[in-house]
């Protein structure tokens, strides 16, 4: 029986090539979309899964309560990790690492390359899953100046040398380190990323301030014992800092590795449950919607051409086929079609995956070696087949043999209504996707065009390395002699990111108990002019302001916090310290850290060049960038010959802060376009069948004098009505969904009505173009021939 069904299905497929193409191609695009999204989701959901102890690993985070909000961050005291392990019985192990990534110059012979990594406790090797390919975890940090590198870094430093253990390499032209271990490269979907690791002890010895319980500048991870109660440990850790600093504002909590990637959004000190998971959910829904759109094509085309299958149904029923066996046959056919579509989809996937990887900046692979990938693909195809085949199967199997064999014209009204409903559903989904795409794009542009308070364009950031700080003055003078450099300055933190901040400042008139978080920035006096900050009151900082007496510049919002009137001449000091700092100038507020938020106030003080970490160079707007960069490189090479020139543009860093949103924007654009393409494939097929069904009517109308235009508009009218109805459904749904999305951003656009109109008009135009081919063809046909066809 099944053989017979497959034969019929296959022959019917090859006989109706255009129909089969529309169906299979539509379904395969649907399957490709879904497969791409699921590959992306799989990668996201499996983030950090490389770690076998994933369920027991936690990041120690802090909540600090201020007047305006609760600040949640991952900076902890540098001496806390070992003590947590000693004192809390539920903690099996603790590991400290330096924050972010440190970039050093690694030199061997005459070869020098930059590489980024971290200082870490040796416990990192047992807590995280970091398999050694050379050396071992036990002896990795046995020596003080030891260095563990990834395979990729080993290749970068030593080429193809097979064994690098025991080799030495000079770091930042200062200290020789011995390679003590090589570990396998970290997968791209690991939160922990580095090229090298050095013992945390070195970091601790070089930075004495790490040893204070009042300073937060270390990342701490803990591993819970397998039998530990998370609730107990959380209770014990909450006021842990207060054991050493009774007045500290910081309260610790544990953040599970299972949530690092997808649920890292905090509000009022608590996890909101949001984060990237929202995009995972959103795109999973989009995947199913696109598949549904493809399935709807199948249903519509199958029922529209049901007359062609009616006789077969009749004959089979006469010969003894029951309704169930026919339902089984037609669903089987749909599943067969979906499986063919999955095979075509697999070929398409292989072709488009590299492009998709570029788009989402991942290294996804089809992973056909993994049985569950094959199972998922099969599952998708079978679900598609079941969904797509269900309605046609019920519809076709309900034909009465007496009617169909007698050639009585089938009453199509119920099927026609359902078909229309399904087309409306398809177009509603497509229009919602179009509107969402436009609004996401507008929101990103809105934030990107936000007045930041400083000029991010043509601003170069260079790490201060080697002899650069020492030679700052001559370097700056030479840079200014390059015609295209407008200014240059030093700072201790990147202008665009959050940096050091303190809540320990007080001033006359500050309300008792008030807690205000203030960012503190050390800069050279040229910083304001170089970055584009405007001095609103008072004067700029000068070199003389270095050291005591302390003079500072504050931002406008801090001035407001300090009370009415000008802040010039007012003083502030650290709690418990009588040394005061006098305010000599006020600059405008500027946006840093969170591009959507309201930034904390900032105070600027002057630091000696060697206390800074980055150099900023302002390039003139009309400059030839490549030529100017070459000039800057030449100057730095002269004053800092050991270090290769490395730079970044602040506007690139700025763009990098919208990666998730940009991804959402790119993906929604892609999937909206595909949804429309699939919907149009279905509409094209449906228009063809409608034209065919109405051949006689068109013939009669033409004989009676109807023009081509009137016939075309007659046929188009029905479809247009459907698209207009789709708009009416799509508009409120899109409005509701996008309002929710925008609410997630403090700095967001107001939706504009014209977006909806444009999306609706676009859908109508696309639908018109799609059906025009069929309608015009039908309208141009010779009426004599069409009348004879009946």
């Amino acid at each position, binding site marked *: *029986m099944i053989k017979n069904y497959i034969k019929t299905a296959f022959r019917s497929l090859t006989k109706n090539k255009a129909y089969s193409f529309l169906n299979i191609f539509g379904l395969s695009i649907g399957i490709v979309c879904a497969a791409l999204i699921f590959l992306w989701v799989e990668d996201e959901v499996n983030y950090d899964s490389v770690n076998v102890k994933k369920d027991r690993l936690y990041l120690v985070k802090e909540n600090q309560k201020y007047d305006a909000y609760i600040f949640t961050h991952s900076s902890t005291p540098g001496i806390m990790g070992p003590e947590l392990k000693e004192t809390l019985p539920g903690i099996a192990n603790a590991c400290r690492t330096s924050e972010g990534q440190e970039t050093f110059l690694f030199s061997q012979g005459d070869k020098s390359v930059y590489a980024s990594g971290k200082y870490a406790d040796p416990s990192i090797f047992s807590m995280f899953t970091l398999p050694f390919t050379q050396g071992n975890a036990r002896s990795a940090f046995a020596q003080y100046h030891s260095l563990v590198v990834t395979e990729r870094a080993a290749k970068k430093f030593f080429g193809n040398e097979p064994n690098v253990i025991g080799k030495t390499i000079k770091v930042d032209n200062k200290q020789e380190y011995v390679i003590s271990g090589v570990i396998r490269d970290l997968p791209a979907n690991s939160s922990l990323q580095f090229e090298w690791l050095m013992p945390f002890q070195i970091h601790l010895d070089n930075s004495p301030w790490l040893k204070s319980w009042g300073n937060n500048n270390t990342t701490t991870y803990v591993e819970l014992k397998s039998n530990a109660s998370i609730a107990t440990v959380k209770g014990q850790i909450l006021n842990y800092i207060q054991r050493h600093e009774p007045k500290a504002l910081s309260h610790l909590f544990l953040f599970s590795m299972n949530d690092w990637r997808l649920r890292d959004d905090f509000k009022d000190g608590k996890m909101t449950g949001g984060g990237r998971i929202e995009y995972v959910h959103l795109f999973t829904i989009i995947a199913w919607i696109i598949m549904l759109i493809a399935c709807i094509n199948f249903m519509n085309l199958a029922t529209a051409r049901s007359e062609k299958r009616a*006789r077969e149904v009749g*004959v089979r029923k006469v010969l*003894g086929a029951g309704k169930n066996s026919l339902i089984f046959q037609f669903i089987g056919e749909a599943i067969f079609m979906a499986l063919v579509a999955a095979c075509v989809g697999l070929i398409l996937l292989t072709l488009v995956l590299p492009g998709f990887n570029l788009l989402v900046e991942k290294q996804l692979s089809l992973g056909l070696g993994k049985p569950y990938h094959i199972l998922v693909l099969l599952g998708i195809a079978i679900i598609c087949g079941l969904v797509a085949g269900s309605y046609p199967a019920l519809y076709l199997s309900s034909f009465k043999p007496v009617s169909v064999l007698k050639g009585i014209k089938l009453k199509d009204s119920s099927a026609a209504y359902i078909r229309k409903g399904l087309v409306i559903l398809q177009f509603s989904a497509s229009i919602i996707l179009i509107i969402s795409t436009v609004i996401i794009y507008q929101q990103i542009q809105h934030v990107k065009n936000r007045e930041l308070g400083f000029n991010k364009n043509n601003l170069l950031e260079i790490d201060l390395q080697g002899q650069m700080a020492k030679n700052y003055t001559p370097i700056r003078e030479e840079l200014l002699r390059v015609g295209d450099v407008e200014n240059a300055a030093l700072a201790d933190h990147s202008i665009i990111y959050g940096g050091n901040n303190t809540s320990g400042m007080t001033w006359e008139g500050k309300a008792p108990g008030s807690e205000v978080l203030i960012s503190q920035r050390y800069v050279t006096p040229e910083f304001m002019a170089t970055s584009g900050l405007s001095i609103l009151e008072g004067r700029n900082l000068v070199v003389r302001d270095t050291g005591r007496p302390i003079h500072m510049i504050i931002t406008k919002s801090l001035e407001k916090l300090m009370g009415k009137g000008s802040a010039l001449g007012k003083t502030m000091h650290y709690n418990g310290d009588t040394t005061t700092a006098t305010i000599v100038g006020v600059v405008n507020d500027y946006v840093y850290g969170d591009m959507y938020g309201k930034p904390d106030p900032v105070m600027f003080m002057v630091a000696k060049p060697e206390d800074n970490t980055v150099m900023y160079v302002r390039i003139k707007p009309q400059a030839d960038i490549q030529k100017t960069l070459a000039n800057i490189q030449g100057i730095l090479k002269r004053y800092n010959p050991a270090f290769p020139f490395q730079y970044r543009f602040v506007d690139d860093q700025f763009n990098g802060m919208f990666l998730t949103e940009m991804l959402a924007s790119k993906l929604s654009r892609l999937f909206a376009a595909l949804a429309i393409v699939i919907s149009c494939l279905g509409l094209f097929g449906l228009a063809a069948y409608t034209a065919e069904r109405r051949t006689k009517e068109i013939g009669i109308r033409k004989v009676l004098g109807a023009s081509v235009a009137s016939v075309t508009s007659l046929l188009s009218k029905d479809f247009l009505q459907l698209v207009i109805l789709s708009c009416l459904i799509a508009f409120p749904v899109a409005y509701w969904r996008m309002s929710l999305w925008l609410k997630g951003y403090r700095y967001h656009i107001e939706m504009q009505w014209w977006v909806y109109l444009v999306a609706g008009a676009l859908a109508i135009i696309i639908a018109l173009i799609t059906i025009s081919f069929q309608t015009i063809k039908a309208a141009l046909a010779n009426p004599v021939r069409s009348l004879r066809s009946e």
Partner: protein
Amino acid sequence: MIKITDLEKFYRTEEVETIALNKLSIHVNTGEFVAIMGPSGCGKSTLLNILGMLDDPDGGSYVFNGVEVAHFNERKRADLRKHNIGFVFQSFNLIDELTVFENVELPLIYTGVPSSERVKRVEEVLDKMQIMHRRNHYPQQLSGGQQQRVAIARAVVNKPKLILADEPTGNLDSSNGNDVMELLTDLNEQGTTIIMVTHSEHDARYSHRIIRLLDGQTVMENIMI
């Protein structure tokens, strides 16, 4: 074999009710060859459909082989049909996507005959109908006469007790038509009961008895000698 009593069938549209069969009573004995004749709209095809259990009556009784089947549900009807009745249509009604062999095989599949047995029986019947050489052709590659032979082969492959033929020669030229009638006569001589609806007096002459219908009622019965 067949006994219908006071059989009624109405067709209703929103405004009109048409009586297709009006308290019709007929009986057909096993091994008979009966022709049903009458003008268009007299109820011949409706009767044939009810006899074939493709349609159900609105009133009256239908006893098939001693069993009252008038109120059988679709599943029971399908079951009874596939084991006992073969159909031959005017327009052949072969499935275009299947070959001659596969078309003839279809009823055996629905009655669950094992594959090896199916091949044997299909070959046997194709041989008998002299279309064995066309076994791998598709219906559209055959002439009308050949298509009707295939349809008859399909109707008899399950060795049904009853064959219902609805104007079996209506789409054929006279020579092919005669061939088909000869085939039906042969089948009847081998014991199969045949009920045939026809417009053709010539074809009706092949039968044992002609039942003439008008407005859903029997108006005359002719016994053929």
